[in-house]
């Protein structure tokens, strides 16, 4: 039940966010261009993501690798 609510909340948030897009000029993007705002994994996270993919069954949808490497331990 809680999970369902979280999913609905996330969906609503996404809907609100995407429905209120504004056209941005380049000079309005100083915060968005901040290195901490990048919509990617941090370089320093690379090996953490590998370990998680070896110890957990779920993977993907995080721009990480989805195959390769045994993780045989």
């Amino acid at each position, binding site marked *: 039940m809680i999970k369902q609510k979280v999913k609905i909340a996330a969906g609503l948030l*996404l809907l609100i966010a995407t429905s209120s897009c504004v056209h941005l000029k380049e000079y309005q993007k100083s915060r968005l261009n901040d290195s901490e*705002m*990048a*919509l990617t994994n941090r370089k320093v996270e690379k090996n953490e993501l590998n370990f998680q993919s070896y110890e957990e069954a779920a993977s993907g949808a*995080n721009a990480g690798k*989805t195959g390769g490497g045994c993780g045989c331990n």
Partner: protein
Amino acid sequence: MHTFAQTRTDTGTFAKQPVSLYTPVDHDTTNTGGYSPHALRIDEIDLVSSYYIQNGDHSPVTGGIGTQHVIDFSNGLNLNLVWLNQANNKNTLMLGVGYDHHTSASAGYVALNGGSKTGGTRLYPSIDWTVENSKTGNTFGIGAYYSGEYNYKSKEADVHWSVKTDDKNGEFGVKLQAYLDKVTMILPSEFVVAPSVTTIPPGTTVVTTASGQTVVLSSGGQVISNSKSSLPTSERNTFTAALSYTQQINSRLQISILGDVVGQNGYLGLPFHRVYFNTGKDTIEKLPSSRFKLPIGARMNYFLGDNIILRAYYRYYMDSWGIRSNTASLEIPYKVTPFFSISPFYRYYDQTAARYFAPYEVHSPTDEFYTSNYEYSNFRSGFYGIGFRVAPPTGVFGWQNLHDLEIRYGHYSQTTDLVSDVVSLSLGFK
């Protein structure tokens, strides 16, 4: 009031004199030489190292019981080369190499007496070429990757492209990947067929092991010849289509929606993972030869005020083995100065069990598929820690070439009692 936004360095601008490895022949005779924006130059060198230590008591090598102690030291080096072609499109060539060394206590128990090799190394080079259209910002690229360790080889090839929206505030991306892997069939010692011995006159002995290795011995026991070991291998193929859409919502908020479609086929278990049946007898784990995965995720980054950023991520995952999973994480970088940030983070994860999982001595010999690998069990996990990032314009510690440094520590724990700690260091050189 200071705004602590630090604009990313635009790798497409050439304010600094580049380190040029190669300068193409200049056909323009009016050019008196000097700086050429078309020259191949080193844009960035990244070094990432991690030290990882893990403990647990549910190793699949010993059928879901036994030590999971692992120590892993990983190192990765990436070199980014850029140049402009005749149409002023930016080309980026990324060359990478990674090297890991690990010791795994459970690997010793591939042999029943615990005498197998516990250490291993992995080497994984990669290459990627991407070209970006200077007018539209659209990109196209291809890449390849190889990973080799003593019992597992993986080859990957990919093609990727991205298309920006007309207003440049949105971007759609696609990456198609194929992994062609080979699993070396190293079996637990009790399943290895005893070597056959044949004596051939006059006095020589030929020993053929279960792995196909042939050793010819003289009558005095000296090795005359020793053929290379040729353990059989099984194939595992993974095909992925990764889709993404990124949208800048306003001057403080941007989101991305991510979805992968993953198909796997071939040998999807590991040959040295034991399963103990409820009869007390053991065997090797057996899993279906195909798996379909569907992870869907979203990221949302929000610049709150002048020096706090919220980095949020959520993923829902489902697969054809019956696993359902949720992942949610939140990281809150706090900019102490525009060039120094502290980032505490927390990641929550849960999953349901695969329909083929059961603990030690629970499976029945009549089951079609069976595994006691706790990776496929029902559990929750938490991962928390803190990161530090320094990126001053004058270089870290005043060293101009070292443009950023990140250190990150995390503690991970599962409800299966698996715990681990990881500390990572990333250095970026220009």
